[in-house]
Structure formats: structure tokens, C-alpha cells
């Protein structure tokens, strides 16, 4: 295996592990850090699978999108208001 394939295998294993931890964690807010690990692994896999200049934009857009979703879920559970509005 070349370095790229080894890195992709590591990302895939971490992604599957994080997905299992998300499914097993009962508390919604404590699911989010595991979901964060899953997003890291998927964003890394996007760049490793598609080495094209636009993949940087795709990986960043995917990652920022999932972060914003986690942010919204956590803030909604915590009462719904962003302090700095």
C-alpha cells in the first residue's frame, strides 16, 4: 500500500468507529463530539479520494456545514439563543 492508501484506510476505520460510538451514546449533546470525529474522517477521505483543486473547497464546505449543524443542534438543546446576537 502507498502512503495515500494507508492514510485512507486509517480514515475509514476511524469513521466506522466514530459512527458506532454516535449510535451507542444515549445523550444527544455527548453524541456531538463523536459526530465531530466522523466529520473529520469523512472530510479527510474526500481530499484523499479526489485529489483535485476543488476537493479542498468540497472538504471545507462539508466540514463547515457539519460543524454549523452540530452548533445549531447543541444551541437548540441548550435553550436556543446565541448569546452574541
Amino acid at each position, binding site marked *: 500500500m502507498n*502512503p495515500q492508501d494507508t492514510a485512507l484506510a486509517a480514515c475509514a476505520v476511524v469513521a466506522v468507529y466514530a459512527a458506532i460510538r454516535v449510535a451507542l451514546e444515549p445523550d444527544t449533546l455527548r453524541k456531538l463530539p*463523536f459526530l*465531530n*470525529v466522523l466529520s473529520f474522517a469523512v*472530510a479527510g477521505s474526500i481530499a484523499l479520494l479526489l485529489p483535485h483543486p476543488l476537493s479542498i473547497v468540497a472538504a471545507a464546505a462539508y466540514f*463547515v456545514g457539519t*460543524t*454549523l449543524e452540530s452548533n445549531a443542534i447543541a444551541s437548540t438543546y441548550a435553550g436556543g439563543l*446565541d448569546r452574541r446576537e
Partner: protein
Amino acid sequence: MDISLLAFVHILVAAAVCWLNFVVIDLLFRLPASGGVVGASAIGRHIEAKGGALPGGIMMGNIVSSPDASAGTLLAACGVFIAGVPGGLLAALLVFIGNRICHDPGYAGTTGAVSATFIVSGFTLIGFSPAEFIAGMVIAILTIQGISHRHSSRLLAYLWRVRGG
């Protein structure tokens, strides 16, 4: 040495380098001090309720809620893998935009992306592949966010006390 075993060792070294890069920058930018949004503080309190430490929990909540230095390191490694130093700097710009989208007033993500760009391109000079840094950053975030929230939040709180609060 077998090439895949060498790549595996490189990934572990890259994980340690990425871990130091993002933890040091996040602590310098005071991420454990307070939640950037109410959701980040709530994640910190839920981690504390399960036996963790509050400052570490808040830092983990902030990592979840906005692209911080760890996201900057990952996307900079992706950028360097695809397009070298200019790709890493493009990733830093995208992290900066992402911070603004997520209502984050800080610059931890952008700083982490710029420093990671130069660290990763420096390591390519001694035989590392940027792909190994992508996997290394995924493993580094796994150790903080994905194994034991109780122990990682206590470790982060300890480092936060060492920094001086």
C-alpha cells in the same frame, strides 16, 4: 522496512505533531475559558456531568461548534496534499470564512491552518507525505473527542491550568 509499515509509523508521528499543533493553539486562544455559543457550554456541562472536567468539556464543545485549530490543521493538510503551500493557504481562507459562518469571533482556526500549512510542507522535505498528516489529524482528534470524554476533558483542563487559566 515494509512501505506500509513505514507509512503507519509516519501516520503516528504526524498524529503527535498535529495533536501538539492544535492543542497548543487552542489553549493559546483560550478555548477552555468560555463557550463561544450556548451549545458549546452545554456540551461542556454534559461532559462534566459524566465525570469530566468543565474547562476541558467547554474546549471540546468549542471544537464541535466552530472550526478551530484542529479543523484548520486537517483542512491545511488536505490543501497541502492537493496543491502544496498555496492549497494550504486556500484552506486557511476557507476556515476563516467558516469561522464567520459559525458566529466564532476568534482566529484559532485560521492560525492553526497557517501554522499547519508550513509544518506539513516542512515535513514533506524529510520524506513524509501530506496524506499521512490527514490521517494523523483524524487520529489526533479521535484521541480528544472520540475515546473517553471523561479522561480527555480532564487532560485538557490540566493543560489549561498549566497554561495559567
